[in-house]
């Protein structure tokens, strides 16, 4: 103790120079080698990379399920998959894509990028970050192992009661779905809290609110959406498990429960969920547009306001998923109006991007191609969105393939296209190597054409009356030709994704080395090496504008005065980002991993027995005590 109260000379970064500073920092922030080192790391870049990789594995798995469904539906009365298995497959596809791919991959991009973009050394609450990844992985494994055991959920990705309730949902299939929700909720809430704190308190000095990069803005608002929307579904899934396991009556009308309560709780989460997926994509589009149009994005303030407006409106339109449940007229009218109102901020954003491209000197590299594909596809999806916002039209097409077409247009067009663009864009930052531009163009066109050929005819199938979630159809129905066409086109789409995966895997090994800033991009993540060192920045950058690297192209202003013998970062004020304090950042720890294992055991056990809730928290508490126990490291001092 007395040793540490004397500060040795070599503990401030102001006193050491260049390579020596980097060596000391690398030592302080290092991830230990080996198996246990990998399990205990709290480096946001390593965890973010794992998150992204895992999410893409789930994307590939979900894609395989989609292809199985298309194979089955290619011909009438096909015998490839039976009804029971098909129910599991479409439920798994939806649940996997929404909960294990779309939301986590956006959070994952933020885990990797937000600390770099705001110029700090690690995400806030780094151990919680490690914990959230393990919980996410456990939830995904549980769902997929259950599916392999013929125990996959078969009640649709929104698991309406009474179908998923105790009377009709036989076995533990619906419980697996509900508990998978709990896993992904816990991990998403954890990441959201980290992002909010990182953005509010760890921005580089000088990065005032109006200088925050747009992707960071979008993740900040997304995080607030997660924090406000997820509790609703957590209540829903927990009460569902209670109904099923111990016979409570939340959704039993005969005992004063309410079936419609489920739909309200689900969609109060489920609609903001759409924006939880979409807003990060919007942030990526704004980032990519500025870089490739070679000019600052048009209407920064309008874009931020549109993000906030979308975030607020997102909580006012969940009922449009429930138009056919027989709600009061006034309610239907209100939610029609609010659903149409969300087209306004969306329109503002589209105009801002077009104006940016119009006025700039666009370089049509692969990421920008995906942005343009996004604009086209998302506008089509938005138009059908305005159509289904109207009650009479929705009543006609509810539960048909029209709706399937609509939400794939907004989800794939609105989120996956920007994400793929974002992967092409940030891949050199993450791996230090470029993805192939030639394969990228092929990938884009295969995916873009394949996507439109696959999903556009589904609008027509829906108008012809083909319902969702049918495992086969009779030969005398007029859907055969189009279904075969859709299935064939899906193969084009799948080949595009296959090419993307091949390109990514190949480029990660043998791609052309990229250097720190291959795109001449303006934001701070490009101010450090690719891939970034464990400490992100040798000295914390100081920000004077929105586009630091364009404004200070030669040498970035930096701050010093941080200790280097312990993990330390700068805490700044919320609005002006004035430096307030030096704050320690936790070291690596294995305890988040054990805490996640204990939580996993508790959650899975509680599907089968209520006693899990009594005994399960004991190992969790033990793990948390280990987690927070002072280890007498310099980080404990403040």
């Amino acid at each position, binding site marked *: 103790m007395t040793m540490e109260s004397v500060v040795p000379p070599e503990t401030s970064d102001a006193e050491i120079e260049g390579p020596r500073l980097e060596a000391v920092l690398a030592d302080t922030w290092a991830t230990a080698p080996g198996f246990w080192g990998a399990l205990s790391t709290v480096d946001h870049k390593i965890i973010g990379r794992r998150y992204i990789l895992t999410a893409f594995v789930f994307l590939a798995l979900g894609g395989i399920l989609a292809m199985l469904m298309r194979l089955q539906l290619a011909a009438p009365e096909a015998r490839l998959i*039976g*009804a*029971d298995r098909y129910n599991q497959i479409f439920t798994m596809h939806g649940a996997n894509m929404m909960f294990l791919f779309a939301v986590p991959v956006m959070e994952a991009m933020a885990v990797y990028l937000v600390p770099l973009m705001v110029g700090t050394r690690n995400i806030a609450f780094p151990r919680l970050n490690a914990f959230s990844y393990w919980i996410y992985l456990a939830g995904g494994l549980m769902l997929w192992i*259950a599916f*392999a*055991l*013929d*125990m996959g959920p078969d009640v649709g990705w929104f698991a309406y009661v*009474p179908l998923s*309730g*105790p*009377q009709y949902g*036989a*076995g*533990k*299939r619906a419980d697996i779905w509900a508990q998978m929700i709990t896993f992904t909720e816990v991990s998403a809430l954890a990441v959201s809290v980290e992002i909010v704190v990182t953005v509010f308190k760890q921005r580089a000095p000088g990065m005032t609110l109006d200088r925050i990069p747009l992707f960071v803005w979008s993740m900040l608002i997304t995080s607030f959406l997660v924090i406000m929307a997820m509790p609703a579904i957590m209540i829903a899934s927990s009460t569902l498990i209670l*109904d*099923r*396991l*111990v*016979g409570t*009556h939340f*959704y*039993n*009308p*005969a*005992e004063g429960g309410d079936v419609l309560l489920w739909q309200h709780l689900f969609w109060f989460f489920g609609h903001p969920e759409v924006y939880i997926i979409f807003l990060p994509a919007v942030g990526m589009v704004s980032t990519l547009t500025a870089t490739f149009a070679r000019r600052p994005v048009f209407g920064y303030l309008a874009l931020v306001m549109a993000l906030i407006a979308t975030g607020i409106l997102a909580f006012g339109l969940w009922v449009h998923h429930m138009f056919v449940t027989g709600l009061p007229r006034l309610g239907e009218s209100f939610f029609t109006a609010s659903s149409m109102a969300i087209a306004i901020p969306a329109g503002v954003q589209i105009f801002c991007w077009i104006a940016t491209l119009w006025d700039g000197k666009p370089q049509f590299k692969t990421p920008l191609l995906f942005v343009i594909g996004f604009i086209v596809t998302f506008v089509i999806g938005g138009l059908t969105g305005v159509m289904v916002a109207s009650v009479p039209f929705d009543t006609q097409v509810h539960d048909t393939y029209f709706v399937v077409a609509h939400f794939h247009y907004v989800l794939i067009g609105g989120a996956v296209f920007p994400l793929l663009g974002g992967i092409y864009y940030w891949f050199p930052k993450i791996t230090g190597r470029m993805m192939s531009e030639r394969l990228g163009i092929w990938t884009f066109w295969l995916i873009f054409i394949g996507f439109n050929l696959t999903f556009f005819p589904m609008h027509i199938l829906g108008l012809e009356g083909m319902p969702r979630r049918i495992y086969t159809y009779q030969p005398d129905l007029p859907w055969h030709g189009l279904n075969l066409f859709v299935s064939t086109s899906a193969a084009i789409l799948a080949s595009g994704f296959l090419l993307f995966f091949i390109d990514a895997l190949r480029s990660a090994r043998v791609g052309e080395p990229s250097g720190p800033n291959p795109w001449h991009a303006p934001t701070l993540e490009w101010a450090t090496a690719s891939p970034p060192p464990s400490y992100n920045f040798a000295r914390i950058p100081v920000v004077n504008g929105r586009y630091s690297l364009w404004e200070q192209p030669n040498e970035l202003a930096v701050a010093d005065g941080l200790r280097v013998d312990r993990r330390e970062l700068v805490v700044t004020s919320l609005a002006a980002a004035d430096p307030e304090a030096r704050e320690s950042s936790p070291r690596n720890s294995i305890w988040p991993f054990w805490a996640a294992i204990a939580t996993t055991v508790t959650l899975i056990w509680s599907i*089968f*027995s209520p006693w899990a809730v009594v005994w399960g928290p004991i190992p969790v508490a033990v793990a948390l005590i280990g987690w927070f126990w002072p280890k007498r490291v310099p980080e404990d001092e403040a």
Partner: protein
Amino acid sequence: MRFVLLLACIVMLSGCEREERQLRLDPPVADALNKIRLMPIGIAGAPPEIYFALHRPYEANAYNLNQGKRLYAWFGCSSCHADGQGGTGPSFLDGWWLYGPEMVSIFASIRDGRPHGMPAFRDKMTADQIWQLAGYVQTIGAYSARTAAPSRNDDKQTRPAENRAPAAILFDQGPSPVHADQGPTP
């Protein structure tokens, strides 16, 4: 490592059978399921060989138990047995089995009927439906909870759900053993 693999295999096997859904049996299998061998007194006996070959699918398979519960409602069992409390017919919930708790006995009771008013259902239900119903009836009088057993209905609650082992909760022997004339209490 080998132990972990073995454990995983066991978990997978049990998982598979617990949640598997056989929507329609092959006719020879359904036929063989009908061939129980009963003791001459009509109580207890041996299920057919195929019952074991299928790993006793009607006792621990969630889907079959749940189907049994629906058959219980569809075939009007509750008009005599209520929700298991009994009425003109005997109770299941008291955990007392007039003809013993074995699956074959329950199967025989449903298929062939019993004296004092239990009708025979052999011409109204298929063999596998009778097995499903028998499995379900057994859970009503169960003393240990089965995770595969169905949960409550979306109805007025009259008793704890089958997966809570209602008999274990509700069985009440009274001040003196109630069925002293019929042997030891369960």
